[in-house]
């Protein structure tokens, strides 16, 4: 079961593995009768989820469910994948395979921590010193200067002595009145994760029971459909426009599949110092590039169209004579049928355009059923349906109708491209384009404990993540401040997270810095 697997330490590459600091070889004053045994706790907090949780956990509300195990169990792909790891990402199961691993994240039913008990070798020396025949003045002097002896014996102790002189007296050693701060292992740095190469990405698809490879294959088919439509257009501008649209769909579908494949890798979701939000923002960037592509194609279509118009206006002979009867009236246009089928398959199977469609809601399209509510699908489907229906109804596609259709498609593409570019560009500009931020801030200001707001930044990182970073000046004590923080986090989630039902899938990471005013 994936949830029972421990989460071992991520490799901490750039910094050398700092060993747990050896217990300072400290020796107390001259009263140490017994050997001093000291406990050394070697704990290392190496839970990768604490540095970059991948799922939203509400430990306080769900009680014991908030353990790191349950939160990591929600992302089973990583564990599954790394079981047969042959490649890039750090082996997650190294901790269990290696018996010497000091990872403390082994599930321990009794919640106690292993303690290493060390007999300090000093104790024997202490005894031997003590057992010397006492009370000669020389010996007394010798005893008084024993610190120096130890310092010579353990030269590294020089300068490290600190704290209470009687800490290791028999009393304090046994009753732990004087507690040393526990020796601290260095905290885990976020692991730096390698970005997979194309080859690794391809190999990773082998583990996913061929489903991903089938999807890649389908994307190629989708592109082939676009090529076929372009080929069969034979001069019809509207059909050319449609083929452009299908090509756009095909590339978007490939991006969808690429995102899915990259999800095999940890670097995609897990944040590191190099990629603070994983690589998930790359999808937004690719989407932005795609919207530029769409804009470009619409420009291209319009300018082609204009050129044709200009050519026919003048006395010039058009380069390629239009075949007005590309498809004989009354028959079915195979290209149009193919394009509808391809679009539907990509939409249903690959969830093409899904995340972008969610991020960009057209209010007036929301009521349409199913995939039609997605503007990209709506555009392609309506275009191809039109191309299918027109010959069926025995409507001659005149040149002007052809041009009109092409222009309409191009304008629609332009509108869609602009909208896509805006939505994703805003995300890339680190802004939050939803509404409700000012309401939330009003409510925050109205909190009686809040004295002032230094900074409030709400922004969307990628399709699935938003951040709210607030710097507040507050009054009140610690517990009140903690409560306030919880309230604000809940408020942001409830107001901006979309609530239940809508399924926007937006996760909000709320960080509140509270400066307590006295």
């Amino acid at each position: 079961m994936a949830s029972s697997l421990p989460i071992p330490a991520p490799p901490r590459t750039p910094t050398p593995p700092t060993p747990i600091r050896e217990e300072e070889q400290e020796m107390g004053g001259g009263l140490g009768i017994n050997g001093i045994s000291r406990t050394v706790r070697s704990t290392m907090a190496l839970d990768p989820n604490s540095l970059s949780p991948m799922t939203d956990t509400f430990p306080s509300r769900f009680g014991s469910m908030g353990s790191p195990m349950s939160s990591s169990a929600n992302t089973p792909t990583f564990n599954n994948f790394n079981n047969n790891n042959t490649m890039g990402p750090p082996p997650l199961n190294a901790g269990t395979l290696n018996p010497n691993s000091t990872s403390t994240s082994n599930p321990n039913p009794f919640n106690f921590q292993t303690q290493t008990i060390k007999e300090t070798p000093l104790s024997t020396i202490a005894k031997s010193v003590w057992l010397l025949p006492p009370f000669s003045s020389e010996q007394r002097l010798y005893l008084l200067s024993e610190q120096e002896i130890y310092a010579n014996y353990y030269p590294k102790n020089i300068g490290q002595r600190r704290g209470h002189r009687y800490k290791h007296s028999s009393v304090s050693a046994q009753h732990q009145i004087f507690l040393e701060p526990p020796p601290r292992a260095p905290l885990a740095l976020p692991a730096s994760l390698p970005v997979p190469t194309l080859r690794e990405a391809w190999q990773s698809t082998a583990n996913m029971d061929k489903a991903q490879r089938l999807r890649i294959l389908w994307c190629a088919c989708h592109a082939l459909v676009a090529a076929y439509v372009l080929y069969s257009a034979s001069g019809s501008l509207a059909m050319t426009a449609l083929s452009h649209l299908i090509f756009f769909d095909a590339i978007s579908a490939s991006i969808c599949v690429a995102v899915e494949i990259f999800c095999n890798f940890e670097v995609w979701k897990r944040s590191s110092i190099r990629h603070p939000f994983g690589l998930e923002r790359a999808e937004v960037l690719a989407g932005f590039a795609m919207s530029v592509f769409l804009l470009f194609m619409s420009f291209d279509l319009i300018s082609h169209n204009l050129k044709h118009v200009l050519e026919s206006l003048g006395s010039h002979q058009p380069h390629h004579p239009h075949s007005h009867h590309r498809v004989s009236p009354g028959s079915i246009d195979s290209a149009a049928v193919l394009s509808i089928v391809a679009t539907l398959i990509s939409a249903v199977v690959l969830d093409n355009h899904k995340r972008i469609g969610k991020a960009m809601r057209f209010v007036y399209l929301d009521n349409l059923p199913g995939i039609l509510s997605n503007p990209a699908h709506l555009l392609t489907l309506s275009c191809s349906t039109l191309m299918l229906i027109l010959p069926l109804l025995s409507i001659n596609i005149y040149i002007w109708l052809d041009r009109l259709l092409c222009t309409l498609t191009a304008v629609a593409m332009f509108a869609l491209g602009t909208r896509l570019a805006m939505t994703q560009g805003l995300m890339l500009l680190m802004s939050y384009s939803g509404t409700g931020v000012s309401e939330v801030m009003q409510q925050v200001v109205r909190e009686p404990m809040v004295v002032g707001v230094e900074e409030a930044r709400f922004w969307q990182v990628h399709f699935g993540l938003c951040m709210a970073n607030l710097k507040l000046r507050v009054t009140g004590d610690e517990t009140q401040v903690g409560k306030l923080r919880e309230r604000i986090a809940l408020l942001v989630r409830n107001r901006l997270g979309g609530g239940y039902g809508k399924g926007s899938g937006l996760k909000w990471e709320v960080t509140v810095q509270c400066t307590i005013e006295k």
Partner: protein
Amino acid sequence: MAEKDSRRIFYFMTLNFAFMLVQAGYGYVTDSLGLLSDSIHMFFDCLALGVGLFAAVASKWPPSERFPYGFGKIESLSGFGNGVFLMLISVEIMIEATERLADGRETKRLAELFVVSALGLAVNLIGMACFGHHGHAGHDHGGHDHGHDHGHSHENVNSHDHHGHDHDHDHTHEHDHGNQTPLLSDAPPKAVSLAGHSHGHGHSHDNENMHGIFLHVLADTMGSAAVMVSTALIYLIGWNGWDPLASCVIAILIFMSSIPLIKSSAKKLLLTVPDDVEYNLRATLAGVSDLRGVASYTVPRFWMGDENEAERVLGVMHIVATRGSDIDDVRERTRDFLVGKGVDVVLQVERDGDLSCWCGRSGDKRSPATPGF
């Protein structure tokens, strides 16, 4: 300097637009298709310039509620968009060129074409003069003045040396490289010049917006120069393949030259932390764990903020305070420490054992020692 940039873009855009109008009007009067289609092309250039102008102006806007980190990224965004656009254009040019090569279509009205492209070249040369200085990062001006002299030596190295004498478009981007492929040389020389001075500034002040516009104008200049040369060659030799061949070569050059632009702007937009900053951040984080009262930290996220040209590291971090420490004190000291390292972080300090936060802390991994016996 910033206002200077946007003014430059504005002037050139106006010039471009005026030229487009004149061209379209004249083309309409004389019923010249070449002029008309060229003015369509000019119009798209104007659009790209307009986007660049908007980005240059907007990048100075202050942060607001809607744009909490300001508009520092908009220039990278515009550069990225321009780079993608250029790539698409070059792909399209190549497709068209192969089509024309296969068709063997005859190029007509050579004289008209020659004049139009000469005028376009003149306009674009003005643009190059405008943006040439600032197209690149701006720390490699040294060789600009004698760039002209090298025009011919590079001509031979270039792959498109078959049109003997178009060093007009070469001399303007001569100033930042001495290596073989003038257009591709954007990244390597920068890296070399970086090695000289301190780290950490290589990626700052690298105006991708101006870079994108520069590349765009450069592409146009090369395009019109290529048309001139190829029409001359067609006239002289009589083979129609010169034109698609020249445009193909130029398309490849444009494609290659927009790759570094896309790469650098994509890195900025992905919020990737540069190598040297990453190294420093690791050291800083190790320092944070040594601070008194800090039990651990969760979800450290840092990114490069670039409001008002000043690059600094922004970020978010949740600190877990040890039991018995004053939360406000821990926050203050951690913050001071981080600010001292040049990192501006929103710090949320939590109490050890307080599991209410989303950051999914697994709890008492690091609680103070329970009394051992």
